[in-house]
């Protein structure tokens, strides 16, 4: 009898223990009580991501400052010939404008979301995802050009400092991965919007949270553009 009660109690105790942990953590909203929890969590995730990208950019700074071979001129490396005339850095400039445009449509999507305009929100989010996919496509083009035509590798670079290859593939690769994940997330949330999921729950915060992530990807690109491509 005794044995039976303890064996019955044990799993319940464990469940209660987990519940108490969950209760304690979810009660930890004194600071962010006035903010939607998902938004606070997304901000904290983005903060950690900020540190990751900052570590990459700091590593890039360290490698570039300590390289004894000449650093390639990015304006020439990322030039495109349009009409038979090479325009410096034009590929990166176009990518920048594409990403900024995607941020613009995303901001409008969040706005229409809070107005409860299901169709416009979904349409703007799909437009954002399309811009994002365009960006990744242009990045694939850029990588192919660098790998196949210029012969740049993560460990070698015929144009000069081998550290250029390492930092280029690491930084733009990690950013491109973020954009790709963002496009997938946008497609999922936009589909939910279109189906009226957030009309039923009456809460369009998911659109704003997805937007936070997307704007962050754009934000990181601002820093990469300045430090890696323009410097």
């Amino acid at each position, binding site marked *: 009898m005794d044995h039976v009660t303890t064996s019955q109690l044990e799993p319940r105790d464990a469940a209660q223990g987990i519940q108490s942990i969950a209760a304690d953590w979810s009660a930890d*909203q004194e*600071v*962010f*009580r*006035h*903010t*939607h*929890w998902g*938004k*606070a969590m997304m*901000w*904290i995730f*983005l*903060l950690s991501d*900020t*540190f990751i990208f*900052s*570590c990459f950019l*700091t*590593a890039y*700074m*360290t*490698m570039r*400052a*300590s*390289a*004894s071979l000449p650093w390639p001129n990015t*304006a020439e490396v990322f030039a495109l010939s349009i009409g038979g005339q090479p325009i*410096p*850095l034009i590929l990166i*400039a176009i990518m*920048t*404008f594409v990403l*900024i*445009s995607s*941020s*613009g449509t*995303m*901001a*409008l999507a*969040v*706005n229409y979301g*809070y*107005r409860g305009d299901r169709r416009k929100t979904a349409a703007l989010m799909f437009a954002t995802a399309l811009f994002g996919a365009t960006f990744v496509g242009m990045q694939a083009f850029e990588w192919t050009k660098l790998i196949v035509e210029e012969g740049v590798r993560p460990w070698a670079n015929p144009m000069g400092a081998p550290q250029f290859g390492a930092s280029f593939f690491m930084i733009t690769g990690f950013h491109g991965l973020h954009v790709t994940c963002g496009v997938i997330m946008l497609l999922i949330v936009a589909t939910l919007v279109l189906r009226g999921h957030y009309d039923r729950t009456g*809460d369009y*915060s998911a659109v*704003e949270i997805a*937007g*936070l992530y997307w*704007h*962050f990807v*754009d*934000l990181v690109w*601002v*820093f990469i*553009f*300045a*430090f890696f491509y*323009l*410097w």
Partner: protein
Amino acid sequence: MDHDTATGQEAQTAPAHAEGQQHPLGLYLKVWGYLFVLSTLSYLVDYFHVQGIVRWTLIIVFMLLKAGLIVSIFMHMAWERLSLIYAILVPPLVLLVLVRIMLFESDYTFWTRAIFFGGGG
């Protein structure tokens, strides 16, 4: 207690809907325009071969302006509560310490290479 949680819940959801992030579309379009202009300007810095300290200053100024616009308006940081703003924006400042340390480190590495490896490596 129950009453407290109820009002807490209300306070938590209320800003997200009523006051929360209902801004005129024009504001976003204006920021969008500014971002385009700033990007063009930073591209022109490269296009016109501005060099040296002027180049670096301009690049950083345009970068910070763009970052500020994105974070404050697009990410709605301007309308968030101060506790959240400080929790997110203050920690990255310690990265400046890392940058400073690594600058010393890279200087040391560079001169080690220059002196002992004859500029190679």
